[in-house]
């Protein structure tokens, strides 16, 4: 009697453990995936707001990623009042596409040549340098996902 009870408890324990492990196997991948997506959006946002802060302050520096924005600053004489208007992300299995819309009240800023290109170049460089993204011939990836960044500047 005594040994059979002990065996019963052991089998119950196996059941309980298996339920926990199955739960774990189901939860962890989706958690990690979700976590990666959230991290990517967070990093991109942080990087874009760095660029916007830098342009609004108007002080040039030779620090690595910031120097990508200096061609813009050379054409700006006053505060461009840039701000992040919207940030959307589209996630598929292996790709994350993030669209950022910046807004400025000035037409002269909106029509500056290669404004969005320079900001995009800065964001890509910053993500690689400070956030462990990798850059394969211009294709950004993080945590096994391809990251596309589209930046647009509008007025208003």
């Amino acid at each position, binding site marked *: 009697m005594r040994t059979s009870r002990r065996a019963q408890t052991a089998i119950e324990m196996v059941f309980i453990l298996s339920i*926990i492990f199955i739960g774990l196997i189901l939860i962890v991948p989706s958690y990690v995936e979700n976590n990666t997506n959230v991290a990517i959006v967070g990093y991109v946002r942080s990087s874009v707001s760095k660029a916007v802060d830098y342009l609004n302050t108007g*002080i*040039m*520096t030779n620090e690595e990623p910031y120097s990508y924005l200096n061609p813009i600053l050379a054409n700006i004489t006053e505060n461009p009042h840039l701000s992040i208007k919207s940030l959307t992300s589209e996630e598929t299995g292996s790709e994350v596409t993030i669209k950022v819309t910046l807004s400025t009240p000035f037409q002269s800023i909106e029509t500056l040549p290669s404004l969005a290109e320079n900001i995009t170049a800065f964001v890509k460089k910053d993500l690689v340098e400070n956030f462990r993204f990798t850059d394969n011939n211009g294709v950004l990836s993080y945590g096994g996902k391809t990251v596309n960044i589209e930046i647009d500047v509008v007025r208003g």
Partner: protein
Amino acid sequence: MRAQISLDLLFAFVLVTLTMLNLIYLSNSEIAHAESFDVMAKVRVFSTEIVDHTAKVYAVGEGYSLKEEPPQIEGAEFNITFNGAENKIIVNVTVNGKSYWVVKNSTVPIANASIVVESGGEFWIKTVKIGDMLYANITKGTNGN
């Protein structure tokens, strides 16, 4: 039963740790950003102040000098240039090998001059007469002369 609780706890702990590590990583980079931004903000205020005071000194006229002190930034070297030909005031600050600079338009006529000063030092903005014209000038002289 006790073993089960501790396993649950362990899993929860792993998930929480994952999130926290990400957060720590993000905050670390934010700190680095904030540090360079601190310098940029100071340079910006300083450059605006110089342009402003130059206009004031010029407005008061001949014989007026104004003492200026650069902001406190550790290990910083300030290089201030008045470019009379293009009427531009250039403030260049070097901190630990990193350089921060800004080019501003002067609202009044300025002479050609360039000074180097460190935090805690001082310099003067004064007027100088060249020919019949009055120009604003910058100098490291002790009393504006």
